[in-house]
């Protein structure tokens, strides 16, 4: 177990493209930190910098309080699992797993014991004599994880390890990874662009955008209180609904949308005091909509398309001039047809409000 700290990290490619800009991040011992972001945001670059596979142009990387900025990858006490698995094709699974320990000149008995232990943990004991080419995708994935775990590294790095698997296997491996993390208690740093993976696995998520951290917090916090429009848009599927409007202090605090619809947000916990007439974006998660029980607080929408997903129903509606998605209970839709009016109410205590100019949460 070890804590990892990144301090004021800068990475520049080819002397001009600034990939990472002054990044700082502290990861506690035993954390499962997920670096999440769209492709090209620099998350893999950051992971490679932590691993020591890329040199940095500024700042430092510390593992367990020790400056490892200049250390060789193999001296950092880390293990890494790659998207392409990167198993050595000419070595058996056993040979793949033993390679690191052999390089460290461990005794044969020790290596044998370690490899067999780890293989058992990952249920790949019967695959040890096989070459990677003869394994299925899931088996390769296990072997690759086995290679990382066999060395008892304090920090395990994962570079999109599940994205080459099919959907079913991915779900299985996700749960398996979570169990593994619980069992071995190493610090995991995990890169993905898949928010479901991030939300389910992480103890903390660092959302990255264009070489910077947009927000670093727990999955719940990220979902419920996104710090800016980018995070709000990126997290959650279907995505958060955005309604553009202005703040009005007439009878409480309200957001008046551009097409004149009033949303009462008096109960919203503002971080910064809003101003009358400030242009804002109101963010409403699809599941904050409910079928209206009374006419009093309801919003009239036009139901365009219905997508039944079993447990819930996605309703694509028109609210004023905005298109919104509402996630409703199937029973809520009783008696409503498409192209008819659907009256909805909104749980306005849980919405997000962003300043339109800065995109930041208010």
């Amino acid at each position, binding site marked *: 177990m070890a804590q990892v700290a990144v301090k004021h990290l800068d990475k520049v490619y080819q002397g001009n493209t600034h990939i990472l800009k002054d990044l700082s991040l502290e990861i506690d011992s035993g954390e499962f930190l997920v670096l999440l972001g769209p492709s090209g945001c620099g998350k893999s670059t950051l992971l490679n910098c932590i691993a020591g596979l890329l*040199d*940095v*142009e500024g700042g430092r990387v510390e593992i367990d309080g020790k*400056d*490892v*900025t*200049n*250390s*060789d990858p193999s*001296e950092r006490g880390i293990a890494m699992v790659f998207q392409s698995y990167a198993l050595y094709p000419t070595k058996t699974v056993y040979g793949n797993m033993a390679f690191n320990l052999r390089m460290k000149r461990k005794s044969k008995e020790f290596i044998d014991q370690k490899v067999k232990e780890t293989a058992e943990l990952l249920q790949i004991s019967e695959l040890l004599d096989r070459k990677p080419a003869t394994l299925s995708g899931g088996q390769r994935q296990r072997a690759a994880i086995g290679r990382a775990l066999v060395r008892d590294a304090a920090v395990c790095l994962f570079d999109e390890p599940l994205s080459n698997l099919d959907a079913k296997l991915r779900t299985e491996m996700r749960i398996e990874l979570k169990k593994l993390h619980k069992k071995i208690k190493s610090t995991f740093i995990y890169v993905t662009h898949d928010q479901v993976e991030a939300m389910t696995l992480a103890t903390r998520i660092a959302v990255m955008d264009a070489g910077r951290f947009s927000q670093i917090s727990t999955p719940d916090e990220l979902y419920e209180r996104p710090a800016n429009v980018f995070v709000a848009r990126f997290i959650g599927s279907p995505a958060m609904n955005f309604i553009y409007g202005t703040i009005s202090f007439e009878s409480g605090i309200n957001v008046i949308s551009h097409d004149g619809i009033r949303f009462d947000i008096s109960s919203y916990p503002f971080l910064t005091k809003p101003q009358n007439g400030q242009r804002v974006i109101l963010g409403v998660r699809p599941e904050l909509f409910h079928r209206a029980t009374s006419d009093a607080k309801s919003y009239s929408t036009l139901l365009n398309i219905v997508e039944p997903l079993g447990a819930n129903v996605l309703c694509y509606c028109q609210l004023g001039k905005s298109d919104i998605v509402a996630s409703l209970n199937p029973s809520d839709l009783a008696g409503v047809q498409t192209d008819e009016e659907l009256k909805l109410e909104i749980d306005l205590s849980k919405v997000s409000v962003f300043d339109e100019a800065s995109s930041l949460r208010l």
Partner: protein
Amino acid sequence: MVRANLPAQSTGQQSFVHKHAATLAVVPVLLIALFFYFGSTIWSVVMSFTASKIFPDMTFVGLRQYARLFNDNLWYMSLENLALFALGSLGSLVLGFVLSVLLDNNSAGEGAFRTIYLYPMAVSLIITGLVWQWLFNPSLGLQQFFRDLGFKDFVFNWVGDKNKVMYAIILASVWQSTGFYMVLCSAGLKGIDTEVWQASRIDGISKLRMYLEVIIPMMKFTFITSFVLLSIGAVKAYDIIVAMTNGGPGGHSIMPSYYIVDMYTNRRFIALGAAGSTVLLLIVAAFFVLIGVINYALRKRES
């Protein structure tokens, strides 16, 4: 490489070697390129402006060696022969392409045919030259064979004829390299999508038309590569001349490489050899700039 201004972490020299191992691995080749290739080239170019004869001599004489070079009938002949040889060795490409097309349309014994067409490539050009010299032997070779068959006036003594000696060398060299261009063209043909052929069948286009109007244009980059290799072959041509004719008769089969090497080794005139090789370098450079421009233009038009 690691930022230099950060304090080195681990200890001493081993760490330096280990960190810069990749750079160190590259250094020998870099030094060889700079010293043996670029350094030597510059040295030769400098020498071409001096009065060096048997020994290097740093008396600068301007362009006098070049004037002398271009007053030398042998040098002129060698340049003429270079052009002739380059043109003639296009025969390897033409024949190689034809053979590759025929092989593409005939699967019987494909491996055996390829083996036979390509084996000359495996043997030294000295041997190629020697065996063709033997075949061209007027009293014991092919000429005599055909005369014995009844063609009394058959003349095939190309090696001894100053007007035909270059054709003899070209013939031998075509024999030697055709198989290679066949392989290149076969690779090019294999790269062509089979759907093009299926489309042509549906459109009812004859095979010959397809080759002329579709396939050959599609293979233009294979041909450009071949032109480059053929020209390199022409510039390098030396061994085959030594083995077949030794430049004779009367210097009528001399080529630039032969002229230059002869100037350095037998006639011991460094500056003139250097001047000749500088001209050769310029010819090569001009040719590759031309090819590069054509290649660039073609690729640009394609995208």
